[in-house]
């Protein structure tokens, strides 16, 4: 390049890497931000640091084993993966599960949403340097964590759903305890809603930051609170209800939380109000829970079938695609986690904002890397990409190591 062709930019353009290891990220991911002074002019999103080949492992497991594997996909929304896989297997077996089991499964999903959203709120407070609210909100998250431990025996990996129902029943004593807990939780959430909206230092950091306009959100197929924060009506609980969401939506007492702001503030408000709505939903589920058995026997060999199970995870629409082949193992199992959809809009959100806003914009979609990552081999020379299965990867890596012996 000749010197005449060089464009001198003042302030100079610097590429700042955020990740793979960075205090703002709880899991590995790489974001190359090109900044001019404090302004982000370009952003490149690069994920794929956390491949665990869960889908491939799942093909060698029985469906029952896969339930527990599925809940380990993600630590925060473990109930959604676990429940959605059970739901997918039941769809494939064309089995109907008892009403009470449906209610308990839905209750676990909603409790999971409450704890996930409070966790997100704490992380969002932390990303803008508001550590006090972070500490306090995580303290109050313990209420719902205790509830989950009370009814499932575990704080994180509840594993409540099983094929044909749920594993544990809810007693009347537990119901009373939970209803008391919900009152406390609702009061605290109203407080955090007011903190988020009225605390100027927090609001100024999220107001108008990371704009994602509705047409772009639609084009990049944003799901969950990210889409709803931009005014898209995407919520599987309302659009395509399953389990106990069907009777719940028939009452008409609940409505989809939407915001047409389109910025991080919109997503924050959607999440906070959705938490309060989820508390009301859980209360409704507990009060209207029918009596009866909690589990239906389903034969372990599932007939050949191809199903798509949809569920609204805390982060958005979660899809489990399952192909069964008449044995007790899946033929193909594909998980499409909501974060995967939301990545696409990330570069657009980052562009044009301040470097200081990058952590909160990244956090605003509530990313879950371990849900998302797949192996993609990118050839550096001709920039082609191809997806590789685990077996081929193993063969290729053995070949590579044979060709490139360790230097002595």
């Amino acid at each position, binding site marked *: 390049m000749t010197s005449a062709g060089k464009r001198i930019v003042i302030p100079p353009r610097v590429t*700042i890497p955020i990740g793979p290891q960075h205090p703002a990220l709880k899991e590995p991911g790489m974001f190359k931000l090109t900044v001019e002074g404090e302004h982000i002019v370009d952003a490149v999103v690069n994920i794929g640091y956390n491949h665990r080949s869960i889908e491939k492992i799942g093909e060698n497991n029985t469906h029952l084993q896969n339930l527990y594997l599925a809940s380990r996909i993600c630590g925060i929304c473990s109930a959604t993966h676990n429940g959605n896989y059970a739901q997918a297997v039941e769809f494939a077996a064309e089995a109907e599960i008892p009403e009470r089991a449906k209610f308990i499964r839905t209750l676990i999903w909603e409790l999971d949403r409450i704890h996930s959203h409070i966790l997100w709120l704490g992380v969002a407070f932390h990303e803008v340097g508001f550590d006090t609210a972070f500490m306090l909100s995580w303290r109050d998250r313990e209420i719902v964590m205790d509830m989950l431990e009370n009814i499932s025996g575990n704080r994180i990996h509840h594993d409540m759903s099983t094929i044909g129902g749920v594993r544990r029943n809810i007693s009347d004593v537990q119901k009373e305890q939970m209803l008391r807990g919900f009152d406390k939780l609702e009061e605290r959430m109203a407080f955090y809603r007011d903190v988020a909206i009225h605390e100027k230092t927090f609001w100024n950091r999220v107001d108008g930051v990371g704009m994602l306009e509705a047409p772009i959100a639609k084009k990049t197929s944003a799901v969950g609170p990210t889409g709803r924060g931009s005014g898209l009506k995407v919520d599987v609980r309302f659009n395509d209800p399953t389990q106990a969401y069907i009777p719940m939506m028939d009452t008409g007492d609940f409505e989809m939380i939407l915001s047409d702001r389109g910025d991080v503030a919109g997503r924050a408000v959607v999440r906070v109000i959705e938490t309060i709505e989820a508390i009301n939903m859980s209360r409704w589920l507990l009060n209207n829970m029918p009596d009866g058995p909690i589990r239906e026997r389903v034969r372990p060999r599932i007939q050949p079938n191809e199903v798509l199970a949809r569920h609204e995870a805390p982060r958005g629409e979660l899809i489990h695609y399952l192909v069964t082949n008449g044995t007790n193992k899946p033929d193909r199992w594909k998980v499409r986690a909501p974060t995967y959809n939301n990545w696409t809009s990330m570069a657009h959100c980052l562009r044009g904002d*301040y470097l200081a806003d990058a952590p909160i914009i990244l956090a605003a979609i509530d990313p879950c890397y371990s849900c998302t990552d797949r192996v993609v081999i990118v050839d550096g020379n001709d920039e082609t990409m191809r997806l590789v299965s685990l077996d081929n990867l193993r063969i290729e890596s053995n070949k590579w190591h044979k060709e490139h012996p360790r230097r002595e």
Partner: protein
Amino acid sequence: MQTPLDVTIQLLAQTLAVFVFPGILFITFLALLWQWIDRKAHARFQNRFGPLHTGWRGILQPLMDFLKLLGKEDLTPKAADRKSFAAVPVVMLVLSLVSAMFLPIVDMDPGTSGVQGILSFEGDLVFLLFLSTLMAVTIVLAGYFSSNRYGQTGSARTGMLLISFEIPLILALVTPALLIGSLRLSIITHELSKLSPAYIWLMILPFIIYVISLQAELERIPFDVSHAEVEIVHGWQVEFSGKKLAMINLAEDIMLVFGAGMVTALFLGGPLLLEFIPIPLFSVEFAGFMATEWVGWVYYTLVFMFKSALVIIVLSNMRTAFARWRIDQIVRAAWKFMVPLAIINLVLVQIALTYIFPILGVV
């Protein structure tokens, strides 16, 4: 006529003052103690416990942190300017220690009235402001010396932050100097305590401005953009490790001692507490006793520590109550709000001194 023995004793006493009390050792002790109070108060405001295990309620934790950092591996990046990089922590520590030596903690010069610091001369207020600006320049250079992108961003932010808040800080310090008509810290402290209580009304606004600017000067939340750990990973400090980081941390703590001490000296009446009670027993006899006897050394120190600790708690409360601002918001707030407020404050003080106080008959 001084004998060699007298000279030796005087020299020893001065050395002791500089190195032990109220010099380097005492200031370091205060720095670690203030860090503990700050951490503990911050944690309690957040419904946490804070340091708990080392010593009584974790009181030795700052010392442990310091000692442990001293033993850690000390790395210098290849791209860094080695000599300048190594000089930064030393320069920062020296600057902060020299600043802290001006604090009027105990009476170092019984010949003159009032409480003097170890160093004290006419015009030292200007010199202190110069030192604090020099500190800011060192911080800005520290980031550039480390040749790290996070460090350079942090330095640019520090520069913008300090340029914005040095001015209200200086303007706030002008008020007490203006009331007394002196630029010597010890004289300002001494004379302020003699003024009529009506002057308190003139000191409230500069006090608020100074405390806010001090928070910005110390780079604490909501002004800690320059080492926001989730954005630029501690900014200009990112490449410092081991001994260098320990010294930088100590220097920052000493700046905290210095900042809180300045508030105490200029706005909270310095090392006097019981003397303000308007009963002759306290205001005359007790004050006279304390000013001449060695008991004053203990009493003045304790009062100074008590008042500084109150300031520290106010500062940690500020740290607790806010989220971190963005740099553009801070600069806008500084130039649109703080600087005009500081100038208006000066105008108000002038109006009050020239027109209102004579009418009210305040002496």
